[in-house]
């Protein structure tokens, strides 16, 4: 009940912030536009796709078209959802730790681990619902319009939410150690925009800097230690395309999040307020 109360409060706090409402509103606008296109476009998609078999590598042209559309939509959403969600949730922990707020929480019979878990689960749930709402809405529109029903696109809810959770744990860590939401946003965006893509394509970019084995070893260690949002995005595409999935980015990112969460908890348990 205490954990639920903190989760509920975290969700309320997120809703009270305009960013999450903005995210939800943008989702609705895009869904509405897609719905209007689906309702009022009067071409027969099967007729349009006749003769396109040579471009679809053995799959039906409709299947290829739908999956390509879904990959594009999922990738757009992946970046937009993660960027907006980080912005919306970065202040959750610093706000909780503000003088006058944390004193009240800690004066109640609630453990510090429950408080941290409530913040993690609450922030994750609000992002999960937003992403699920958009993906399910988009999936229904595309499937109704094309007549091609494939659950692969629905499963992208999980990699998107997972990528957010890993970064959210990092935000919690920064929040607990520095109580700064601005620093959390800067570091997370910096990682997402600069470091993560460079590490994902390290053979192309980073290996070119030096041929030293030590340097390349260091780059590899960084790659395996840190979360892999770019690789999770590729995994998401493979889920939609029903291609083979490499799970390494998932378990290594989960390990990073797990260790960092444990460290955050350790620091939080010993911190004076």
């Amino acid at each position, binding site marked *: *009940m*205490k954990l639920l109360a903190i989760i509920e409060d975290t969700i309320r706090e997120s809703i*009270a912030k305009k960013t999450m409402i903005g995210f939800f509103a943008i989702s609705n606008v895009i869904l509405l536009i897609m719905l209007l296109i689906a309702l009022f476009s009067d071409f027969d998609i099967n007729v349009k796709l006749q003769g396109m078999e040579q471009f679809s590598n053995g799959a039906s042209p409709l299947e290829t078209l739908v999956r390509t559309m879904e990959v594009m939509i999922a990738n757009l959403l992946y970046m937009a959802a993660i960027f907006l969600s980080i912005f919306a949730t970065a202040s959750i922990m610093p706000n909780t730790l503000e003088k*006058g707020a944390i*004193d009240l929480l800690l*004066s109640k*019979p609630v453990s510090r681990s429950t408080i941290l878990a409530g913040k993690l689960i609450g922030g994750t749930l609000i992002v999960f619902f937003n992403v699920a709402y958009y993906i399910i809405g988009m999936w229904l529109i595309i499937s109704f319009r094309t007549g091609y029903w494939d659950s692969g696109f629905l499963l992208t809810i999980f990699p998107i939410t997972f990528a957010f959770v890993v970064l959210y744990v990092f935000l919690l860590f920064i929040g607990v150690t520095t109580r700064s939401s601005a620093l959390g946003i800067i570091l997370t965006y910096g990682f997402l925009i600069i470091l993560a893509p460079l590490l994902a394509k390290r053979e192309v970019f980073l290996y070119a800097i030096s041929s030293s084995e030590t340097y390349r070893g260091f780059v590899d260690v960084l790659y395996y230690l840190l979360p892999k949002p770019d690789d999770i995005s590729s995994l998401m595409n493979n889920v939609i395309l029903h291609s083979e999935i490499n799970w390494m980015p998932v378990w290594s990112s989960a390990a990073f999040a797990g260790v960092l969460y444990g460290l955050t908890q350790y620091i939080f348990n010993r911190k*004076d307020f």
Partner: protein
Amino acid sequence: MPVIIASSLSKTYSPKSRHAVRALDNVSLQVQAGEIFGLLGPNGSGKTTFIKLLLGIAFPTSGSGTVLGEPLGSTDVKARIGYLPENHRYPPYLNGEQILRFFGKLTGLESRLLDRRIDEVLKQVGMEQWRKVKFRKYSKGMMQRIGLAQALLNQPEVIFLDEPTDGVDPLGRKEIRELIKHLRDRGTTVFINSHLLSEVEMISDRVAILHKGKLIREGTVESLTKDGDQWEITAHGDVHSVQMDLEARSIHFHVEKERITIIVPDLQEANHVSDLLRSRGLLIESMQQKKHSLEDFFIKVIQDEDR
């Protein structure tokens, strides 16, 4: 029976840094069940840190203590405690009732009991009509009242109030004082941190003074404010008829028109002087043991410590 025991509690913030701050220095005190205990001290004297250590919000560098028989920071004992922090910050997106519901759930109150307690405490602090208004729209006094309601929700055995009347108007302050006395009468132990010494004097059974993290005085309000054994007599009438006698006995007095105020060193002398006044036809208005106000006493001891 003591419900709060602090044994040599010390707290140093950032102990390994150049900017280490010794907020509390070897503080030992006990608070008995059912009393109103006032902790006084200038800003930065360690009052809030002391409460934070008792509640497990901060951890002592050394020393130990118990609250309601449980070691400091025990999670379970917090269900029996109420706390109104200074500069409390409630979620601004919630209304008064939602705030109470949230903190009631955290305290572990069962749903039906919580509904009843919310009604009761809102009534107690005079906030019934504002229960559906968002917290961000509250005045400072209303925020303080909701904070107080939150601290009372679980019918605590011990309640910690850090500047409870901060920002509250005089009428509201009186109501809060009455509420605190009512809590004491019901057996609740009340621990108050306050700058408003006159208020603490009015309601506290015992007080302690912290200065630069050290406990420098502790006792009942009466024992601390008593000015030795001196007595003060006020009378009016033909004041000139007694002036010569008083001067002859080296007794201090002050005359203002028809009224004389006399300070005597002890009760026996007070009786002699009152006999003299009556024999000269003066009417005695009052005769009482001379006291400092708590504020006078507080300022004096702080100045003495700083010398």
